[in-house]
Every structure is written in C-alpha cells, then in structure tokens.
C-alpha cells in the first residue's frame, strides 16, 4: 500500500504540486493522467525519493520513503532514458540491475527470456550500446529492467510513449498480468487516455498540481476523460 499524504512541491513561489491525500492499496493498477506540466513526473520523482517534497510524506508499504531506503528492495521504476546507463549493452544493463537486485546471471537470463516476444528481437544480441538504440527500444529495455527482482511496486512514467503499436499491446498484456494476482501495485502515467483506461482500474487526473478527478475505471471512463480534456 502506498500513501501520499499532503504532498506539495514549491519552486520559489510557484507551486507545481499539491496533493491532499491518495491511498493506493496493494495490487491496484493506478493510472495518472494530466497535461504537460500537471505534475505527474514530479509526483513520481517524489515517490522515488529523487525530489524532496516541500510538505508531506510518502509511505510505501509502511516505509516513509524519505527516511529509510528499504523500499528500494521491492520497488522497480523507469522514468526516462536517464535511468539507463547508456554505455552498456542491454544485456550488461540487465546484469547490472540484476546484481543489485540479488539475481545471478542465470536468473537474469531466465527472466529476460520471458520477454523475447516483447523485445521483438531488437534488444538482445544486437551488439549495440543502449545509447545507439532507438527511443522505443531504449524504453523497452528500461521497462523490463524495472520489473526485475520481483518488485511489489512498479512505477512507470509514460511507458506507452515512443512504443510501436504491437509493443504497446504487448506492454498492456504484461501490465495486466502483473496485477492479476493483486500482489503487485502498478503506477503508470500517460497522455494516452485509451491505454490507461484499458490497463488501470483507477485513474487520477492531475491539473496544475492538484487532483481534479479520482475515478474507478468503468466502461464510461474513457468518454468522461475525453470530455474533460476536450475543454
């Protein structure tokens, strides 16, 4: 369970984020939607203790993220390309992350093998450094690395952007499978309303840093969101 309690972030006088309270129960697939500058990435960065909030605290499975680092053991994340070590090959990157997450080479190989279809032959064995891969392929590698080591919480910022349609569909299957047993909490942000409504059971809309909608996904949700953003 993740609790976001009166989180706000100010830069000088401008407040970029002000969230009263959000509780995300274990096993929920949680979608965060909003226009550019709404504060989605800032909120995720605060969840990962990469930015300090001006007020409030985030609790991840009873651990206050800014006080202890133990949440890192069960949290996987991919925010953007700066989460890749660009001079490594994808294989080396997976090995590195696996090492940090207590997996040996064989574990890593076995884990990665599950995603052959997702990678579509464009990641493994290509003899390319991550810096030379296309944006979409970089993203594929980053997303899969975030899933390594049996995380209980997975945080993905804009996972659908830059992916080709086939990979988008495959990613949706992967996310659905993750939350199937209601043990893994998945947090996703997206600009694509169709994708989030499809994979997330709950959708929160941010606007200028504040929560303006908190919806349990139903067949009407997509329509509701579209009419909200059409304004």
């Amino acid at each position, binding site marked *: 369970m993740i609790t976001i309690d009166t989180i706000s972030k100010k830069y000088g006088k401008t407040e970029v984020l002000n969230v009263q309270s959000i509780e995300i129960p274990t096993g929920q697939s949680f979608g965060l939607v909003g226009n550019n500058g709404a504060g989605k990435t800032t909120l995720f960065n605060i969840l990962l203790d990469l930015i300090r909030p001006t007020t409030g605290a985030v609790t991840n499975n009873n651990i206050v993220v800014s006080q202890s680092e133990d949440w*890192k053991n069960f949290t996987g994340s991919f925010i953007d390309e*700066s989460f890749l070590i*660009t*001079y490594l090959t994808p*294989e080396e990157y997976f090995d*590195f992350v696996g090492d*940090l997450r207590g997996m040996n080479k064989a574990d890593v190989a076995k884990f990665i093998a599950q995603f052959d279809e997702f990678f579509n032959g464009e990641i493994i064995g290509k*003899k*390319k450094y991550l810096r030379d891969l296309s944006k979409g392929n970089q993203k594929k590698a980053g997303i899969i690395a975030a899933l390594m080591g049996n995380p209980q919480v997975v945080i993905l910022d804009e996972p659908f952007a830059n992916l080709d349609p086939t990979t988008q569909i495959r990613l949706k299957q992967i996310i659905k499978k993750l939350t199937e047993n209601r043990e893994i909490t998945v947090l996703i942000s997206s600009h694509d309303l169709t994708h989030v409504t499809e994979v997330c059971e709950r959708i929160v809309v941010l606007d200028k840093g504040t929560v303006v909608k908190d919806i349990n996904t139903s067949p009407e949700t997509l329509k509701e969101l579209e009419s909200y953003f059409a304004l």
Partner: protein
Amino acid sequence: MTLRFLKLEWKQYFRSSHWQKGIALKIIMAFFALYFIVSFLAIGVGGYYILKKKFPETDPLTLVNSFLLYAVLGDLIFRYLMQKLPIMNIKPLLTLPIKRSKLVHYVLAKSSASFFNILGLFFYIPFAVVLIIEGYNVAGVLGWLFTIILMIQSANFLNFLINKNNIALGVIIVVLLGLISLQKFDIYNVTAFGGQIFDAVYENPIYSLIGVAILAVLYHLNFKQLKNLVYLDEAVSQKVEEAKSADLSFADKLGDVAPFIKNDIRLIWRNKRTKTVFLMSFLFLFYGLIFFTQKTYREMPAMLMFASLFVSGGFALNYGQFIPAWDSAHYKMLMSQSFKYRKFLESKWILMVVMTSFLYLLSFPYLYFGLDIFLMITAGAIFNIGFNSLFLLFAGSFNRKRIDLNKSGFGNTQGTSATQFLIIIPLMILPMAIFWVFNKFVGGNSGYIAVAAIGIISLLCKKYAMNFIEKKYIQNKYVMINAFGKEA
C-alpha cells in the same frame, strides 16, 4: 541566405558549452589561448631571424620553401586523423526550403574556416610580414603567401575527398617516407626540388594562379560528391559502433562491489573522455622525466615531490576529481536502486588504489635516477593511495556539475568548478610542504617518512573516513540529483 548562415554560425559558436562557464574558468582559458597565439606569433616573427642566424649562408625563404613539400604531406596525414567535415550541422536544415546545393556550399565554406586551416597562418602571415620588412619583393611575398593559403585550402578539400580511405592514407605515408628516404640516401634531391617550386612562385607570383585552378577543381569535386550524399543514410548519418563485450567476470571475486567495478571499467573504456583520462594517466608516468633530468630541479626537493606524486597519481587525480560526476547521466537511476551507497564509493576507491599501485609498479625504472628519487616516488604513491584517494572521494561530494560522457576528451572542461582548483591544496601542496619542512629542518629520510606516514595513517583510518564520506554523499543526494539532471 549567406547572412542567415553566418548568424547561425555566430549563435552556434557563442552558445556552445565553451562559453557557458564560470568567469574564473573563462579567464584561465583566455590566458591559455593568448599564450598559444603569442607563442605562434613569436615563432612566425622570430623564425626569419633564427634561421638567418643558424644558417647565415642560405636565404631563410629558400630554407622554408625547401621543407614546404614535407609540411603539406604531414598536414594531410594530420588532417586525415583529426579533421571531420562538419556535415551534421545541416541536419536540421534539410527539411527547410533551402536548395541542396546551397547547403553543400555552406558546409564546404564552413570547413574552409576550420581551425586546421587557421593554425598555420599564425606562422606564415607574420613570416611574410617580416620578409616584406626585410626588403623582399612585395609582389613576390604576397604571391607566395597567397599560394600557401591556397595550398592549405586545397589540403582541406583533398582531405574530404580522401574521406577516411585507409588506402589513400597509406599512399600519402609511403610518398612521404619515400621522399624522405630519396633525400636521405642522396638518390634525388627532393628538398631542393620542392624548394624550386616555391622559389619560382616568389620569382613569378603569377604562378600562384595554378594554385587557384587546383583549389577550384578540388572544391568542385567535393561539391559534386557531397551533393549526392546529403541523405540521412549517407553522409548525414551518425556512425554506430559495434558493442564489444569483454569478459569481466574476474571482478566477481570482489563480492558486493563487483557490479560497480565492472560498470566503472566499461564506463572508462567506452566513453571518449574517460578513455582519454585513462590513457593520459600513463603519460603522467613520464612526468617525472621533466623534473628528474634537470639540474635546476635537483636542488628543489619540493618540486621533485610534486613530480613524484604525479608519476603514480595520474589516474587517481584525473579520474578521482570528477567522482561522482562521471555517473551524472544515470545518477537518478542509481539513486532509485537498492544498494548501500558505501559499495558505490568503495568501488571507486578500489579502482583508484589498484590503478595507483599499477602505475607505481610501472615506475620502477625510475630507480635509474637513484634511490632518492625512487623513495620519493614510493612515498608519493603511498600518499596517493592512503590520503589522496580518500580525499578525492570526499571532495567529490561537492561536485555539482554534470558531465556528458559522449563529448570528447581533450580540452573538455565540463564538470569543472571551483572544487577542482581548491582540492589541489591538500592533494599536492600539503605533501610538498610537509616534505619540504621535514627535509629542511629534520633532514635525513624524514621527508619521505613523513609523507608516507600520512598516507599510512589515512589508510588505517579508512573505515572512519568512509563512514564520514558516505554520510556526506547521502546528505547531498537531492542537490546532486538536481544538479546532474541539468544540461551541462
């Protein structure tokens, strides 16, 4: 259109990362630039008189002329290795309504103003001015200078035609070596022949028009070739190198720090700037030669200590001063992974210690200069291992400047801030001062012992120092994430 291109050039130059620096760094860079310009001018102006003095029976102009042929070939080899056509610049312009031919002219014109074409002029122009002052035929000298400029420009365009063709490079080297050996074994007097060409230009400046024709032909060939290559999959493409994975499993023996060590080895080897740092550290091995061979320094033991620190410390100093900015591009990622910060720091420490020890082993030939020097290098190495490696880690917690690993190594000051200047005091001045004090007032071997002792004591206190350093890094975590996230 030309004006627009010039405006773009202007902005590109003044908005490049060169200029986005602190004032202190700018002053230092300006000082260096000035130094180089003045030294080149001095060679150009003084060249005539030096030659006159050394070889009173030959005319300095004839002397210079006789070696110009070699200079041209040497220049070509140098360009082949270093110079690249600035073609990536036009990528954003390709989709705009500008004629392809204009873009090609722009690229070619830009290349003719490159550093490689200007450097030589710092010699030739002052030399020509001196010739005129010394009463040489003005028209002749101007024709000669004009020919030289044409020749430099021709070399510029010839280089792009050769375009990284290894066979062509081979041909140039063979021709150069061939000419030198023809001269050497008195088979044919190449030097005199080359001299005659340029002497003739001086006698009849009209011959320089031949240079114009050559340049025009080369330019036209370049234009024709390039015009057909202005496509994203041809000339305007970024080369992708094939990834080579070496087996680094030997590092696994190091346990918890192994992933970081492996990562650091790859970081150093696969990025231009870090690779330069690594290779340069071997050059620093020879730094001692400058000091140990000169009598003047022999009487200044503190300076010898300075050199001794550099002999084994080249890597630790150059790599260590930018910890953890080397990892700035993926610092966020590291900070969201679960590992003890200690391991990250420990791996950097091991790297510095191993490299310093290795460089120390390589410095054994310095025994040739006597036991004194060797003891000094030994003391320096112990100080580098014990004190400097820990201190560099500590100083690293003050680094706030991002480093882009993909940018090239030479003269790159990215990541430099006041920290890099301040740390010199404890790293270098402190051991020099200690050595000087003990050597002067206690005598005997006390200087070496004092410096080495500080190293050993620091090493013994490593655990406490590391606790302190680790805390410092954790305290500064958010500031560093923020600073490293900003474009440099």
